[in-house]
């Protein structure tokens, strides 16, 4: 009997301690052991960063292995680090340290994502994602990148110094200091390496360049026939205003490529009518433009850039300033990579938009037998290179996946219907870079003029970007930069035969023949993911080009004089969609008003009054969106039928749809297959309006307000609602210059006015810190949503105005 209290109390304590030390299962999620997670000393409470409202400026003295001189870091009111160093390696060491301090978990998850190592921490549910990214060859591309980059002394030193800084921070951490997400996911930080920086770079390249419609195009071609395909999917949009227009400048282009081109006889594969996985697609846009001094009040050029990306917390970009004895540069980069990738210095400014050309192709591979180790090209048997990928899975068994590399790239999809055929994926980023690429590119940080810009941008290599430029000397320019394969007409538009070397890429368009616009007489350059050139450009290319934002930006810029930074802000925040205007102008006249009830007529009148501006508190943008979507889906029901069978197909663009409404209202596609009647364009838009009127009747009015209707949210990277911002009220839509969509939008609005000293403004929907417990986690979100900007602090010496400084760090060499 005397033992009973001991047994009971012991059992109670044991159960309690076991329960608090054991990960908890909650559906698909595994929660961390509660005792370690909730205790206020080393659990999540330890991530509650102090808020210094009393003006206190924390100061730290630290060191990083390898440091050769003193480095001072001043953090401004946005927590942007201003790094003052005596040499570049020390600057990158400090950059690694402060980036890790703010964004360590984000860096880790970015590198894991590209290397296909998410399942190691997230478990079984993401293993297919890991498998796919490995099959697409991105991890191997990053390994090739680093193998090349380290041959260049500048790049090796830069990457290793940055790595030293990151690891110096990691080594300081006790489990109590781990970023919150590590605690939630119950794992520990691991050492940073230069390879991980390359993985982050590859991840960013993929996020921007990943788009191809070869498989969907092939299926559509087979299903529709050549004439209909060409009718619905023209390569050129007649209203488009390209980035670089033909002024006779490319008359001599391509003459050196004739030898190559004579060898191009690409063959289209017999079109498959079987199920493929969906094509890869990342529809990321951006705007940039530069105006020269003839158009500005100050007489100095102004450069603007807003990069449109999926919006997440922690925010994708990290702001910083690097100050060295011979230059000072301010801008943004992704966490995990040294240097400044978009920004400005005392003399120049530069900004990016996506080129939107397709830079990946698909090939059908013919195996000699079911072991899939040898394949046939030009009658010759070649051996595939096999790479066994080991995918570790948290709480599960490791799986092995053999990826077969061919001369047409890695095999991504296996054809379940044919044991002897598979599909290989050729992507520009599979090609190893030149060892000197990063040194060239990052020389833009210290660039002084147009020549420096032209020397730097080839270093972008396989990241295809429209790079806008402005200099204090008065120059403006834009270049369609990247690796673009030299192709025969329509090569790469469809699935190609992988049994002939003729179909291999034959090199890239030479740097000097890439479209460039320098000091145009109109006084501005601009891009917004539209066509790179008009159709007279000698090299063939295809892609998914935006048809709306560029025209709207052009229409604003062409009549704008006496420009100031404030007038530039109004373009970045412009919410008018020319795509919507064109569609509306095509749809309204076709409505058969005799068939409308009074409330439908009222809706018609409301739409007639709409100016195609997507404003947050209005309901007409929501009504129009529903109307357009209904009519569009009704028209392309034939495509839906294929898609429902699992066959990816193309859908015509909205501009083509609008054009058909106006020019071919009797087009067979307007007929809805499920009805006995033969519908035309008028029937479609009238029916669509009635459908929408019925929805409007039923819907609560507040849900129709545009900002609620589009359901904008900035989610945490791990999709944790509590760490997300679900309450942000925004204007705009994907096709307005202020391209704010449901989870996507301008990720860094930047305006730089050059002159004797640059003056810059910027804002992004996030904050410098990746810690949800920091006041700097999402402090810029509300300003961003409201269209407000922060003046960016460009400090030329470390004795900066003290009222802007919120924290100081001093790094000194170890003895």
């Amino acid at each position, binding site marked *: 009997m*005397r*033992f009973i*209290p*001991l047994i*009971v*109390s*012991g059992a*109670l*304590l044991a159960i*309690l*301690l076991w329960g*608090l*030390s054991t990960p908890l299962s909650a559906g698909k999620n595994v929660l961390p052991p*509660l*005792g*370690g997670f*909730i*205790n*206020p*000393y*080393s*659990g*999540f*409470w*330890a*991530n*509650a*960063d*102090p*808020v210094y*409202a009393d003006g206190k400026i924390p100061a730290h003295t630290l060191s990083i292995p390898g440091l050769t001189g003193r480095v001072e870091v001043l953090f401004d009111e946005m927590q942007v680090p201003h790094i003052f160093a005596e040499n570049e390696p020390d600057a990158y060491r400090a950059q690694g340290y402060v980036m890790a301090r703010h964004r360590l978990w984000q860096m880790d998850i970015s590198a894991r994502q590209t290397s296909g190592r998410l399942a190691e921490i997230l478990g079984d549910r993401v293993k297919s994602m890991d498998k796919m990214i490995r099959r697409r060859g991105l991890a191997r591309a990053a390994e090739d990148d680093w193998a090349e980059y380290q041959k260049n002394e500048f790049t090796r030193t830069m990457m290793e110094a940055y790595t030293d800084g990151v690891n110096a921070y990691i080594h300081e951490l*006790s489990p*109590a200091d781990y970023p919150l997400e590590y605690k939630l996911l119950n794992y520990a930080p691991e050492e940073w390496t230069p390879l991980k920086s390359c993985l982050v770079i590859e991840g960013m390249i993929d996020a921007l360049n990943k788009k191809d419609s070869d498989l969907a195009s092939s299926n559509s071609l087979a299903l529709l026939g050549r004439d209909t395909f060409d009718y619905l999917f023209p390569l050129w949009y007649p209203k488009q205003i390209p980035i670089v227009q033909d002024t006779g400048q490319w008359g001599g282009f391509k003459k050196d490529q004739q030898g190559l081109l004579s060898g191009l006889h690409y063959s289209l594969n017999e079109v498959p009518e079987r199920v493929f996985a969906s094509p890869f697609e990342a529809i990321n846009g951006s705007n940039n433009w530069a105006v020269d001094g003839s158009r500005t009040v100050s007489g100095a050029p102004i450069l603007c850039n807003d990069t449109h990306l999926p919006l997440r917390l922690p925010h994708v970009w990290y702001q910083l300033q690097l100050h060295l004895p011979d230059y000072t540069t301010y801008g943004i980069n992704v966490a995990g990579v040294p240097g400044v990738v978009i920004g400005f210095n005392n003399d120049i400014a530069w900004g990016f938009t996506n080129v939107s050309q397709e830079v990946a192709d698909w090939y059908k591979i013919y195996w000699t037998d079911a072991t899939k180790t040898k394949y046939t090209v030009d009658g010759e048997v070649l051996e595939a290179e096999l790479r066994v990928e080991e995918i570790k899975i948290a709480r599960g068994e490791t799986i092995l996946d053999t990826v077969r590399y061919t001369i047409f790239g890695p095999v991504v999809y296996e054809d379940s219907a044919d044991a002897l055929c598979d599909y290989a994926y050729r992507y520009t980023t599979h090609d190893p870079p030149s060892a000197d690429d990063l040194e060239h590119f990052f020389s833009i940080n210290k660039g002084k003029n147009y020549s420096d810009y032209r020397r730097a941008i080839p270093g972008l290599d396989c990241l295809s970007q429209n790079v806008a430029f402005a200099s204090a000397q008065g120059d403006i320019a834009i270049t369609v930069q990247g690796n673009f394969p030299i192709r025969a007409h329509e090569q790469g538009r469809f699935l190609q035969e992988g049994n002939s070397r003729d179909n291999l890429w034959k090199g890239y368009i030479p740097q000097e023949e890439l479209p460039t616009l320098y000091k145009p007489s109109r006084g501005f350059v601009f891009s917004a993911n539209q066509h790179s050139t008009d159709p007279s450009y000698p090299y063939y290319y295809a892609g998914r080009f935006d048809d709306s934002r560029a025209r709207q930006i052009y229409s604003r810029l062409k009549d704008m004089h006496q420009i100031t930074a404030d007038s530039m802000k109004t373009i970045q925040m412009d919410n008018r969609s020319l795509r919507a205007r064109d569609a509306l102008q095509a749809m309204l006249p076709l409505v058969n008003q005799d068939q409308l009830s009074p409330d439908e007529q009222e809706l018609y009148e409301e739409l007639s009054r709409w100016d195609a501006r997507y404003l947050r508190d209005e309901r007409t943008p929501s009504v129009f969106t529903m109307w357009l979507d209904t009519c569009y889906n009704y028209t392309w029901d034939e495509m839906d039928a294929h898609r429902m069978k699992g066959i990816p197909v193309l859908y015509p663009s909205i501009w083509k749809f609008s054009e058909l409404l106006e020019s071919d209202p009797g087009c067979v596609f307007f007929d809805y297959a499920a009805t006995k009647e033969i519908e035309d364009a008028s029937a479609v838009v009238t029916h669509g309006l009635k459908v929408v009127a019925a929805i409007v009747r039923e819907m609560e009015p507040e849900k129709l307000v545009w900002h609620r209707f589009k359901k904008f949210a900035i989610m945490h990277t791990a999709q*944790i*609602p*509590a*760490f997300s911002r679900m309450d942000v009220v925004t204007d705009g839509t994907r096709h307005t210059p202020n391209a704010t969509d449901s989870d996507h939008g301008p990720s860094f609005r930047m305006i730089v006015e050059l002159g004797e000293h640059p003056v810059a403004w910027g804002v992004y929907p996030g904050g410098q810190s990746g810690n*949800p*417990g*920091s*006041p700097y*986690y999402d402090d810029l979100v509300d300003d961003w949503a409201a269209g407000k900007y922060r003046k960016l602090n460009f400090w030329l010496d470390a004795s900066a105005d003290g009222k802007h400084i919120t924290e100081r760090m001093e790094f000194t060499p170890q003895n």
Partner: protein
Amino acid sequence: MKAFVYALVVVLAFSSLSYLGLPWWIVAFAGFLAGYVLIGRFTVLLGAFSGGLLAWGLAAYFKDRANTGILAERMGEVFGGLGGFELILVTAFLGGLVALAACFFGRSLRILRTGNSI
């Protein structure tokens, strides 16, 4: 009353060693120690519970105050919609509960070894 205060101080003091990097279950060790060493019936148990409660509750409170509630608001949502203050209470209660269970065990062990049921 003395036993209550002693138990509270012992648990509070030992638990606070977590600041030095000791693991979170030091609060259990502290509770066990109080139960095993201190003589008393419910006062020791109550003291240990209060010590654990204060050790975790105050630490959470001060961190939350310095943070102006930013993190507590977010973490409260993770914990099913708790408010910041409720989250501090949950934290405190858990600290108290572990100390109490360990104190109960320590006291039971002492009683078994000494035969003294007080």
